[in-house]
């Protein structure tokens, strides 16, 4: 019998398990795009049949890091930029958990960029939501890795000399097997994309455009947006990495020219997840490791019986 009976429970999920009203009230500013991520996640999780107790939401630091303060799942509010390594290990330790990591653009594309690249490369079976508002919000409006070139702030008084980082392209090149962009102003698409990302068996990166009404007034509210999968203007095959790369490039260039493009950019259903790869190599047990500590019949190995002969 599992010690974690919330995992893979066969039951209908009541939407009220993710109550629409939240207590305590989020500390985000009125009009903040972060509310939309919370709302979309609360809708997506019951739709994919995931209960709060089988879900672990790991966040970084910043306004986005407070996401798990307002979602009634298991949560780990980690360090600035470090949600991914914590989340990866929890997934390896207990693969039955639905693991979601989330953070902002400074968190994921700046201080935690190394973890982003390597988590995508390894293709861990998890969802990574980046609240991309092109600014550092909680520290009061500094230029971020995705701020456009020339962006002026208190720490870049003459305007940023740096090209903005291109998160979709980066995720694809690093090896993510699902890459999408959605926007806070597009709740239906956001929910659908999160559902797909959670159900995807691999590293699903969702760049979530979340307007910051307080510190990034220059940026528009990411409207009007165009869904590249629905628009007649764009025609590309999201399962083809070359076409996906081209579409991402166009999207990332267009953002700062006033054109908000969103949608699913890359989907590779065939690539095995990291857990599958490790199990195939015999480097990860078939049964969740976390269960073993609760198995009274398990005969724990001793170094004395297994490894000492070669020292004699």
């Amino acid at each position, binding site marked *: 019998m599992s*010690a974690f009976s919330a995992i893979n429970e066969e039951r209908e999920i009541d939407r009220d398990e993710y*109550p629409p009203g939240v207590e305590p009230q989020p500390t985000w500013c009125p009009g903040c795009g972060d509310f939309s991520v919370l709302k979309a996640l609360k809708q997506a999780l019951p739709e994919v049949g995931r209960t709060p*107790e089988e879900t672990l939401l790991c966040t970084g630091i910043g306004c986005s890091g407070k996401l798990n*303060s307002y979602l009634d799942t*298991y949560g780990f*509010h980690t360090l600035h930029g470090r949600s991914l390594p914590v989340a*990866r*290990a929890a997934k390896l330790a207990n693969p039955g958990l639905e693991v979601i990591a989330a953070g902002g653009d400074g968190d994921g594309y700046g201080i935690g960029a190394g*973890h982003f690249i390597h988590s995508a490369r390894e293709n861990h079976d998890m969802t990574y939501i980046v609240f991309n508002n092109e600014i550092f919000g909680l520290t009061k409006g500094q230029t971020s890795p995705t701020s456009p070139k020339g962006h002026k702030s208190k720490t870049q008084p003459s305007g940023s000399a740096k090209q903005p980082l291109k998160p979709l392209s980066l995720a694809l090149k690093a090896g993510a097997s699902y890459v999408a962009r959605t926007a806070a102003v597009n709740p239906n698409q956001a929910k659908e994309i999160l559902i797909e990302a959670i159900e995807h068996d691999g590293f699903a990166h969702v760049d979530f455009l979340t307007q910051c009404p307080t510190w990034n007034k220059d940026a528009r509210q990411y409207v009007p947006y165009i869904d590249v999968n629905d628009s007649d203007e764009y025609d590309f095959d999201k399962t083809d990495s070359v076409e996906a790369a081209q579409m991402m490039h166009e999207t990332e260039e267009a953002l700062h020219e006033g054109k908000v493009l969103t949608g699913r950019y890359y989907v590779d259903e065939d690539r095995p997840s990291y857990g599958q790869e490790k199990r195939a190599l015999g480097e990860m047990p078939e049964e969740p490791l976390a269960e073993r500590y609760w198995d009274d019949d398990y005969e724990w190995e001793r170094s004395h019986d297994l490894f000492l002969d070669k020292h004699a």
Partner: protein
Amino acid sequence: MTDEELIWRISGGSGDGIASTSQNFAKALMRSGLDVFTHRHYPSRIRGGHTYTEIRAASEPVKSRGDGYNFLLALGDSFARNPQEEALYGNEEIKPLSENLDELREGGVIVYDEGLLDASEIPDFDERAEENGWHVYPLDLRGLAREQGREVMRNTAGVGATCALIGMELSYVEDLMRDAMPEKILEPNLEILNIAYEQVLDEHDVDAHDVKIPTGEHEEEQLLMSGSDAIAYGAIDEGCRFISGYPMTPWTEVFTIMCQNLPKLGGISEQVEDEIAAAALAVGASHAGVKAMSGSSGGGFALMSEPLGLAEMTETPVVLLEAMRAGPSTGMPTKPEQSDLEHVLYTSQGDSQRVVLAPGTVEEAYEQSRLAFRIAYEYQIPVVLLYDQKLGGELMNVPRAAFDQDPNPDLYHTLTEEELADQPHSPDGKFHRFQHDVENGVTPRSLPGQKGGRYLASGNEHDPTGHISESPDNRVAQIDRRAQKLAAIRADLDTESTQSHHGPEDADYGIMTFGSQQGTVEEAVDVLNDAGHSVKSLGVSDMLPFPSEEVEAFIESVDEVLVVEMTASGQFRGLVQKNLGRHGEKLSSLLKYNGNPFEPAEIVDGFEAVIIEDGMDDPAHQTTFVPAAGD
């Protein structure tokens, strides 16, 4: 003392098989019934450079590398660079012979490979040999090996020659080769071993010198093991089945052993992008309910500073290793030092809490690796096991029985779903993971995936459900509760001291040290008492929480204390004074930070100069003396 102990040094270049040859020979000596202890000296490069390993063997227990050595086997360095004398690194080709002469004892034996080394390139070699009574045997080891078609097997020829010269039966070495070598290379190696052995017996007077193998017998089965082996096995026996890391010398040794063994145990090892990730993964795995560890050496451990604080704040059990090497910065990657002590004690922001243990011997490394996991999981706190390149890499014999212990996979204070149902919850169903008033400060935890256990783990200060809180009352309650754990751990550790006491209890003087210098200090104490001094020693393992009562009693019981450590700034002495708040006038320091560990004689000389003669004007060796306050 040449009739009582053999200290055999094999020298050559990195990549010449010095390590494997010496490991096999050490095991052969152990199997012959002797106690053994090895010491490695190697540069931070893949090929070439001055490398040696020493094996000390005696019929009595040996706890250190000893003083100097008495048998040199100098092989060629196949990868020597800069053969010109004016080059930055000098003439490397001759170094296996030239660099090893200063520490060779009078009457010692030199075997060198004349196929690769030319002693006439060393100034005054013959004069020095005569002055010191060295017995020199130039042998064409390379030629001998080449005749058998395998030039690289000249190491084996050297071992054969050694056996002939010290009067050791070949059978111990032959048995080991059969155990360790694949069929293809076994036969030619055995042949070369025997030919070299016979040739030396036939052509040389092997009784011209006094360096002979001692005889001994073990009462119980012995194992040849390093501190790194012992730490890894301790972790495995404590149910650790997850390790994450990034390669760095010398921590890589434990990481490698775990990566090779964990898959056989259905465990998981992860080599990741950096040490921040490594420590964060260990925290994540432990949070999900698996016994987990990570670790690094100085610079890599610096990157773990923030995850270490996160583990403390979220009360996630985790064991981190810190394998010290000479710093600051990249320092000297392959050389031992103990100067990361303060780094490990104090790194990470805020009033953060951790436990730091510093084992002194291979056997203690096993015991304290297990203890680290027990404390981490029982008290939900990060525990750092602090050791160094010396303890990690040196091999010594330990009784097999020391490892014949029950495994302990216990997660401690982790609730079942049934137990969770009876715990306090908020109206929204959140479990009170961080309750204020609990015994010893430990509040039981749930694991993600359990019914009825939802909570938020946060690096922010938090209320009982884990929710971020800046309420002053809650803040004080949580800080005080977490601090309470340290006091409880101190009381727990005091039930069975991990400190090592040595020498007569009523001695007049004391020597204190921590970690890997313990064995060397204890040998020095024996020498001093034999010479008529009255000295005892204390090797401290608990760095944090500090065993103040035990250390206080030790210092109170003697007139003066010499504190021995491999740091330049007397960090351990500072820690003692910080914890006891006094005794500055009683503690003087003997420091060494030249990249080599202490030899017993350096401590003997230091003690006599500092304590007996009241100050060291002209420090012997490369040690440094810092007087007690007021002196």
